[in-house]
């Protein structure tokens, strides 16, 4: 099982990395952004497995993005590895601070309280005109262990970086989902009472999932900020978080790769509808959302499972 996982991870890595050669520039950027957002959504999927959905994952997406930007602008650090690590660390600490609090909430209350927290960050950043207020900040292109590419090589390097992180994070999360803790998470979603009476702490399980989501959100935000070259408080706005939730629901909680595929699909749909229906792209997107929710109630991952079921 584990060795199969490693093999499929390597295959996915190679297949995706080939995109650095074959993809046109715009698509490579779109994929990089989609994968960065996919990381955030992977965190939501981790929480979904425990039965809660965060409507405020923009909090960590934004926190990661701003951490990287402020560190880069104030301390002259441009190394992508270091920036990613620092953002992840900040999000880890904030996640540890809020995790135990949020782990008491379920359903719509968890969703709304997480949303409130991210809106507080949005409001605070909007007020801080010394770091750009609502207009946000720019961040220079990253370097890779001293290498400072430009143009297509920069985009390709960023793309390979996010592909690698996504595959590693995806593999680790898959190992976690399949682990004893992962099974406990599923059991919690199903029947908290049973889990408590088996002697496990439901809060503890929820907290871990939340903290993992925080770290993944921070990493996704950092990469998105570096790819875009710009951050603004909109990263923490509820519509941003809503999009992450949509990707997570579209993917379902069964399959990890489905998360990234969903993120890419959403980016493609949005990009093309925006271009071809500039006046009605929201309508197009809304119809697409509804169609997906109706056609695939358990997410894209259920397709994969069904497909495998048929073959078995």
């Amino acid at each position: 099982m584990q060795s199969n996982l490693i093999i499929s991870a390597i295959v996915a890595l190679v297949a995706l990395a080939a995109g650095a050669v074959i993809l046109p520039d715009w698509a490579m950027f779109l994929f990089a952004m989609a994968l960065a957002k996919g990381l955030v959504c992977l965190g939501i999927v981790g929480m979904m497995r425990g039965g809660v959905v965060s409507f405020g994952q923009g909090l960590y997406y934004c926190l990661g993005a701003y951490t990287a930007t402020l560190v880069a602008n104030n301390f002259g650090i441009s190394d992508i590895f270091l920036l990613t690590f620092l953002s992840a660390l900040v999000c880890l600490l904030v996640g540890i601070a809020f995790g135990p609090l949020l782990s008491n909430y379920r359903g719509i209350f968890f969703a709304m309280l997480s949303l409130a927290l991210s809106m507080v960050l949005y409001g605070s950043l909007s007020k801080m005109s010394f770091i750009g207020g609502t207009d946000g900040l720019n961040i220079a292109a990253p370097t890779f262990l001293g290498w400072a590419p430009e143009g297509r090589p920069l985009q390709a390097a960023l793309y390979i970086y996010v592909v690698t992180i996504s595959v590693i994070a995806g593999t680790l999360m898959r190992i976690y989902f399949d682990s004893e803790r992962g099974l406990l998470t599923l059991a919690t979603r199903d029947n908290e009472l049973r889990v408590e009476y088996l002697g496990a702490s439901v809060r503890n399980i929820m907290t871990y999932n939340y903290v993992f989501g925080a770290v993944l959100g921070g990493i996704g935000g950092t990469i998105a900020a570096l790819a875009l070259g710009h951050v603004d408080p909109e990263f923490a706005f509820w519509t941003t978080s809503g999009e992450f939730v949509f990707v997570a629901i579209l993917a379902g909680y069964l399959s990890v790769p489905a998360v990234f595929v969903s993120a890419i699909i959403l980016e493609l749909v949005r990009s093309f509808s925006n271009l071809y229906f500039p006046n009605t792209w929201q309508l197009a997107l809304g119809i697409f959302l509804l169609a997906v929710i109706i056609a695939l109630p358990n997410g894209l991952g259920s397709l994969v499972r069904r497909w495998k079921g048929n073959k078995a």
Partner: protein
Amino acid sequence: MDLAATILVDGLIYAGWLFIVSVGLTLVFGVLNILNIAHGSLYAIGAYASASLVGAYFASGGDAFPYGSYAALILAAVLVALVLGPLLERGLLRFFYGRDEVLNVLVTYAVFLILEDVMKLIWGVNPYFVYEPYTLLGDVEIGPLFYVGYDFAVIAAAIIVGLVVWLTLNHTQIGKVVLAVIHDSEMSQTMGVNVQRVYLGAFMAGAFLAALGGALTAPMISVTPGLGVNVIIVAFAVVIIGGLGSIPGAAIGALMVGISRAASVHLLPEAELFIIYFVMAIVLLFRPEGLFAKTQARKI
């Protein structure tokens, strides 16, 4: 006028508006268990519809009896509820009953996106104005300040809405049925309640209240695209503070948010953007399910 009194009056006016826009949301959640993001769209459509209707009223000789425009405002909200209520509830939402709450939020988010563009297709992007009803009721002088009579009409409307909803739920046969469905829809169904009809009725009532909020607001603003977005979040906050599904909760939530916002504008203008989230976070910290949530002890 004393500062505290000004804050109170301003807070009450805002709270009245908040209550009207959020009570429908909490009613729909209570009955259908759906937190309806499209509530904001219904609000905006109510504003557009009333702008059109009131405009048409004055265009067809309404100047002779300008007070008729208030009937047009309410009629607009009724029309929105009659058209969109069944369309959304029968046509879409009923397929999602009993599904995950968060999934349902996304369904209504999709509806919200669709309606945003539909409004643009129907009404275009140019603003609509119907100020006649706003100035018709004259000024009210309180101390050194002038208020518009209409502001107090909004408070009155909020009180009437609150009373009607409360009396309907607690003192009529229909209300008892609705409360039974809120309490336990499966049980009600087995006891012969036509749950389908209750759902439709509650959603239409919710749509009417959202549209009424928009219709009453239309005379004091310019009705433009993007109107709904800002309403959703404040209405959500009020409803979460009060406890999802609780009508008195919506009233208390509206008062808390309204008065604390007024206090912030007068005393600490910098904080206005946060105040609503601040109140919400504080309430949720101490009452995780809001002030008036129905607590459910699980029997094992």
